[in-house]
């Protein structure tokens, strides 16, 4: 691609992209995660991209069983996990075979030489050993017998050789820690805490880790040592956060800011389950998690809890949203607060459970029967999931409406340094429960009207237990105001209009134009494409072109200035991880000639890809 190739002998580089790849039993996610944490603590900016097979145990040694973790570390502010890796750590032949195409020409391959034997080569479909001969001539290949060196390092510990072998990922981690001058203490402390009580496992992992580190130092790898200096980021305290964790913490914060108990009704589904897991651990924050019998009961229980005065939330992925649609429609009719989180994945149907896609935008906007509008938000980075969980809760509570929050598999599992907010700076979410009569009937009696609206057109949140306010709600059309069941045609037309208007009126911030607003071309995105688009726009602007970037968080209602902004550009390019969903919306709403850029490979866009596309759109010439 357009990356400048990394000169292997250089000792100081501004950034490096490393991909750890191995069999799904090899612990690659953990290895990548530890390397990332050490890099974060060292002060680099970073972004990660984990990828793993959908099967829990795909056949060992096969291409289908390869699990990988890419991390991009740099001494400056970066936006994506990077395009092509500079370094591939291949724990077996299948890992090498499946990942080689993505490695940068001239990049480094660190292979666990022990695994390149007949059986594994055959499973990966190699007729001969690629480490021998010229196959990898374009790369710098470092062969390390990691398995045998790990066994050797553990042999005096009393660990069985088969168990010792399992520590080989820590050998790889030790080696990479040496090559990239990572601090060792965080990993050693982590091993001790993680495996507390299992002394042999601690001993073996530490021995393998040290052996890997020592190997780098003593073997002839001296010319491979690289330093990526800490990045200059805005000052403050940082933590490395994944999207799912940030989202869960955002919900905790929303409970804190509103003073409401958070009730999560959820059903396990990849890639959303980690939100359920995280919140299940946080009961001390007055959080109730309920693992329901199915997706429908998950949203039903959340709606029941919302009716009872709690912050009702349900978390799922696309197939789950399909099942919840009828209940979400009920919530639209009941006009109760509800937060629905869709961590999108590849579809249709079971699709690609562990791969990312963002093809549920139109489902979020329109995927219910009848006219049933609701606010839709999309988070743009892992850390932004925290802010948008709060924003979704705020809109739901203030406007008494279900709100759909979209993230995706990429945001869910990838991570980035997050400048931690000051908790005291987070804006409280006011909650108002109805407490008394609000109307007088024709006989002069005080009564309660459940559909009498406030200036936001929201109806009162009158929770059971409140004296005098007994009332009945439901999915049948209601008379506006009194809330009685009504089949009246004029009332229905009025209510359809009110439901649309009250969502359309929700105030959302204007979009910002970044990049260079003076050119003819604007790239418009939503959700997790933010990093790749911003990176690409930054690069082409750096090349002297004028390209602007507009990124939507609020997809319903759309920001008020959106039409005006779009009309300021001749060309509108809309990259999406679908076949063109936002682009339809923009064409429909604003009558602009917006053009789609699609990627539906289960992988996020890279900045490099978008850079090429933008350059192509500009006429291709590099200035």
């Amino acid at each position, binding site marked *: 691609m357009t990356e400048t190739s990394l000169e292997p002998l250089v000792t100081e580089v501004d950034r490096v992209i490393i991909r750890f790849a191995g069999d799904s039993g090899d612990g690659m996610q953990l290895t990548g995660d530890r390397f990332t944490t050490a890099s*974060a*603590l060292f*002060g680099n900016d970073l972004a990660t991209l984990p990828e793993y097979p959908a099967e829990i145990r795909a056949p060992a040694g096969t291409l289908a069983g390869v699990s990988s973790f890419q991390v991009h570390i740099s001494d400056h502010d970066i936006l994506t996990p990077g395009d092509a890796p500079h370094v591939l750590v291949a724990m077996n032949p299948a890992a090498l075979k499946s990942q080689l195409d993505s490695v940068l020409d001239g990049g480094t391959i660190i292979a666990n030489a022990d695994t390149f034997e007949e059986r594994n080569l055959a499973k990966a479909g190699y007729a001969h050993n690629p480490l021998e001969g010229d196959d990898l001539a374009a790369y710098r290949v470092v062969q390390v017998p990691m398995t045998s060196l790990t066994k050797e390092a553990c042999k005096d510990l009393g660990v069985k050789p088969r168990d010792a072998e399992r520590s080989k990922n820590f050998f790889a981690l030790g080696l990479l820690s040496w090559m990239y001058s990572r601090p060792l203490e*965080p990993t050693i402390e982590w091993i001790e805490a993680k495996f507390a009580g299992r002394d042999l496992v601690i001993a073996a992992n530490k021995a393998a880790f040290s052996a890997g580190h020592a190997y780098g130092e003593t073997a002839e790898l001296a010319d491979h040592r690289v330093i990526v200096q*800490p990045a*200059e980021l805005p*000052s*403050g*305290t*940082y*933590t*490395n956060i994944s999207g799912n*964790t940030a989202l869960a*913490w955002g919900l*905790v914060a929303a409970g*804190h800011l509103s*003073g*409401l*108990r958070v*009730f999560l009704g959820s059903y396990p589904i990849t890639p959303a389950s980690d939100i359920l897991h995280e919140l299940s651990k*946080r*009961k*001390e*924050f*007055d959080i*109730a998690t*309920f693992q*329901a*019998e*199915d997706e429908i*009961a998950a949203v*039903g*229980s959340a*709606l*029941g*809890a*919302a*009716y*009872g*005065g*709690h912050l009702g939330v349900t978390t799922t992925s696309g197939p789950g949203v399909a099942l919840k649609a009828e*209940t979400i429609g*009920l919530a639209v009719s009941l006009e109760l607060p509800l937060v629905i989180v869709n961590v999108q994945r590849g579809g249709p149907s079971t699709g690609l459970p562990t791969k990312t896609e963002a093809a549920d935008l139109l489902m979020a906007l329109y995927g219910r029967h009848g006219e049933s509008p609701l606010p839709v938000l999309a988070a743009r980075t892992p850390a932004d999931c925290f802010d948008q969980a709060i924003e979704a809760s705020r809109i739901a509570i203030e406007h008494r409406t279900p709100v759909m929050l979209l993230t995706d598999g990429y945001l869910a599992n990838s991570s980035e340094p997050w400048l*931690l*907010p000051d*908790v005291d700076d987070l804006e409280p979410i006011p*909650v108002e*429960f109805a407490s008394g009569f609000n109307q007088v009937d024709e006989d002069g009696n005080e009564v309660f009207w459940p559909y009498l609206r406030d200036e936001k057109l929201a109806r009162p949140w009158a*929770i*059971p*237990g*409140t*004296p005098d306010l*007994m*009332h*009945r*709600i*439901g*999915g049948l059309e209601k008379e506006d105001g009194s809330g009685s*069941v009504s089949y009246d045609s004029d009332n229905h037309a009025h209510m359809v209009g009110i439901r649309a208007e009250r969502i359309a009126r929700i105030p959302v911030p204007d979009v910002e134009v970044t990049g260079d607003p003076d050119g003819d071309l604007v790239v418009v995105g939503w959700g997790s494409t933010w990093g790749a688009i911003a990176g690409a726009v930054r690069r082409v602007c750096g090349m002297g072109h004028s390209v602007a970037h507009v990124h939507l968080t609020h997809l319903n209602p759309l920001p008020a200035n959106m039409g005006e902004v779009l009309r300021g550009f001749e060309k509108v390019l809309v990259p999406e991880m679908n076949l063109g969903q936002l682009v339809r919306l923009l064409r429909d709403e604003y009558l602009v000639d917006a053009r789609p850029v699609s990627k539906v490979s289960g992988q996020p866009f890279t900045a490099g890809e978008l850079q090429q596309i933008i350059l192509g759109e500009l006429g291709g010439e590099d200035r």
Partner: protein
Amino acid sequence: MTDTLLTDGASDEVPPTTRADWQSDQEVRWCPGCGDYSILTALQLLMPELGARREKTVFVSGIGCAARFPYYMNTYGMHSIHGRAPAIATGLALARPDLDVWVVGGDGDMLSIGGNHLIHALRRNIDINILLFNNQIYGLTKGQFSPTSEKGKITKSSPVGSCATPFNPVSVALGAEASFVARTHDMDRHHMQEMFRRSYEHPGTSMVEVYQNCNVFNDGAFETITKKAVRDDMLIPLRHGEPIRFGSEGQFGVARHDGGVELVEVADVGVEGLLVHDETRPDPSTAFALSRLAESPDRPTPIGVFRAVDRGEYAGAMNAQVDEARAARGKGDLHALLHSLPTWTV
């Protein structure tokens, strides 16, 4: 905020109410002669006796004729979507253990489209009272066979007879680990009220099957057992601690047989040979055997409480976990949470 409502103790004394207090201003819109009327009346008359508070009472329903019920009660109520009432009530009862949550639905709502929610509610044992109005037909959609319709049933959607074996709702509930299961019928207000009261008082999920006549689409489905003239010989009252005996002269009874139960004549086995009903038996097999005595409501059929065991309510256990977490770790500190992973300062 909800805390204040949970502990709302303005006055602990429940103000006395009358039937009129529990009637909403909505015109009742079931077909004239529908069994639902007598169930509604029975419950509206019972509520003052239970000492319940209207504002603390919630009726949740799904879709169907029976699901209209909440509109007619002057309490909080939600007429939700088809089959989902137990799921919605579950969330409400978990969130608000201070409320009395009732679920009302028919056989199609609860055993067909909502069957999964029903069995899981029963299994979990959250404190909700489920009234299942069984009329063995789809009424609101105008007469298709339901999951409790007998095999061979001729309806609009089964013109030459349905091929499906019906559910026995009591057997289903017992198989789903229900802690309280009872059966009653719409012709006996007093018996209905006794069952509803037991359901109300039971800690955990309770299910009461009510044989309900749909006089429009399935008239007389239960009359071979519930008509006054035949009732004594066709209904087997289950009374805790008493031998199971019925018949106009008390001439019939139920005895153990071959691992199950069978109908006997008292003259043959003697009163001592009859099974003494124990609704608290931990093992549900005897209750299940009783539920199998009549395959369809044209043979002597047990009514009353089949099973009532106290096996720990779910919402209490779930909320205790929150309380324990707060006792052990203190009230959550958001700042500390955000700093709980490794951090670094720039």
